[in-house]
């Protein structure tokens, strides 16, 4: 049994259990394929939960207490709460992957209109950055990392700059 099937089996079990206690979920929420589907006033919304373990939402103690109470949480509320948690997980995974993948593609030493030096650089996603504090130090750190012959990853660069500034 692959992981997604296992997760979905558990998700179905938990949803059915919650429906037993909270009848406002019945007829509003159902699992169709990999999706949690919600019917609200004839309008359908869905979110893929095949890689999200539904019981994780119960880490919130207030929800854990209120999920069984139809006067506190209805089907639409629960769908929206689950969707927020699922999307948060997706964004967190993206952030973890992306931050580790960011590297500096170019760096320039410039002067602003007041003649103050600053460093301007860009990463491989096209994000632009400016550092005005100790620009010469920042430039030297970049050159030192660049001299190793590998890409200068943003995480490493920021860590080095912080160490030098605090050192």
């Amino acid at each position, binding site marked *: 049994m692959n992981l997604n099937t296992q997760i979905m089996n558990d998700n179905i079990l938990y949803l059915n259990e919650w429906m037993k206690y909270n009848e406002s979920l019945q007829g509003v929420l159902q699992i169709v394929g990999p999706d949690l589907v919600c019917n609200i006033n004839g309008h359908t919304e869905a979110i893929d939960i095949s890689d999200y373990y539904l019981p994780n939402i119960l880490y919130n103690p207030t929800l854990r207490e209120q999920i069984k109470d139809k006067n506190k949480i209805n089907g639409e509320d629960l769908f929206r*709460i689950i969707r927020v948690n699922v999307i948060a997980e997706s964004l967190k995974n993206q952030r973890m992957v992306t931050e580790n993948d960011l590297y500096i593609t170019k760096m320039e030493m410039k002067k602003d209109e007041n003649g103050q030096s600053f460093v301007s650089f860009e990463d491989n996603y096209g994000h632009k950055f400016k550092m005005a504090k100790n620009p010469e130090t920042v430039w030297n750190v970049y050159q030192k990392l660049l001299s190793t012959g590998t890409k200068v990853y943003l995480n490493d660069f920021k860590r080095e700059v912080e160490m030098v500034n605090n050192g």
Partner: protein
Amino acid sequence: MAKAIRVQDYVEQRGTPMERYNIETFIYDGIKYQSLITDSAVQELDHAISKIDEALLNKNENALSLDRYRQSALQERENIALQSSQARTLKLEQEQSGEQQRAGYINAAILLAVVANLGLLIAVTLIVLNL
């Protein structure tokens, strides 16, 4: 396909319509249901909001759009809290009114008893005096 795009990508008009819709709902519902989502989700929400604020500094139109969702959700949350508070106040007033009514009935019963006892005392006194 990712379920939603990051705020940074939204403001630069990247992503499919569903990915863009999902980040919009994330901001709105995240704020509205903030007390009912996990700590991890709250952290991601805070991070997304900080990115909206950064993009707002440049008066980015797409960031303004996300900010409107944020403001709308905050207003909705405030309305719900106000309604709950008003419902609690009304219930308290009703309970107090009920108690006051009960206290009124008790006071009337005591007064009646006192008057009845006084009447009885007067009657007995008159009888004794006539004797």
